[in-house]
């Protein structure tokens, strides 16, 4: 979804959260998931929706989210 809706977006893992950087915008608190710092944490859909809304690409994201 990120590749499609926010090409070039970068996820940076921090001690407490993941930061998602896209252009001049940052989403500062993508959760690490219930099991802590994993490569592919479970991410609640609600957080992703709001992140994509912040980036201005929610319509694109809805194609991927259920």
């Amino acid at each position, binding site marked *: 979804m990120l590749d499609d809706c926010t090409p070039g977006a970068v996820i940076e893992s*921090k001690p407490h*959260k993941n*930061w998602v950087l896209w252009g001049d915008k940052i989403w*500062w608190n993508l959760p690490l998931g219930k099991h802590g710092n994993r490569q592919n944490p479970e991410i609640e859909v*609600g957080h992703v929706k709001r992140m994509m809304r*912040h980036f201005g690409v929610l319509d694109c994201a809805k194609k991927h989210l259920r």
Partner: protein
Amino acid sequence: MTNYPLLFGRREKVEGNGFIARVAVSGRVLLTDEDGEFWVEGVNPGGLAATGNSASEALAQFCQDFLAVLFDIASEAEDFDHFRDQVGKFFSETSAPALEDWEEAVRQVRAGQVDADWLTKKSAETRLGVEVTLFSQPAATNNDLGDLALAA
């Protein structure tokens, strides 16, 4: 779905590498009740959101997540100036979609269509801002629980 426009004040102390900083924020958040699922979405600062099974739970989680972002910024700040600049960037990044909903919610509060009697009301035009200062003179008078109000 009901949106509540809130004014969000927090005073946090953050330890960085070689410094202790005080961060005082007067910002805006959007509290949304989605049929019993509560979300708090940052307007200023934008770029973060939290959820809970009640308004209190979502707000508490947002405050914790806000602090976590400050800690993460501190973890890689080279010095106090770098930390201050990054916190300023964090706060100033407004969420445009959330702001639009926040302003509409203010209109609904003013029209009497939305209310939250568990919150005091404060002018929606209250000055926003973030202040980051070097913590050098501890004093009990600096302690601050923060505040939350319904923007009206």
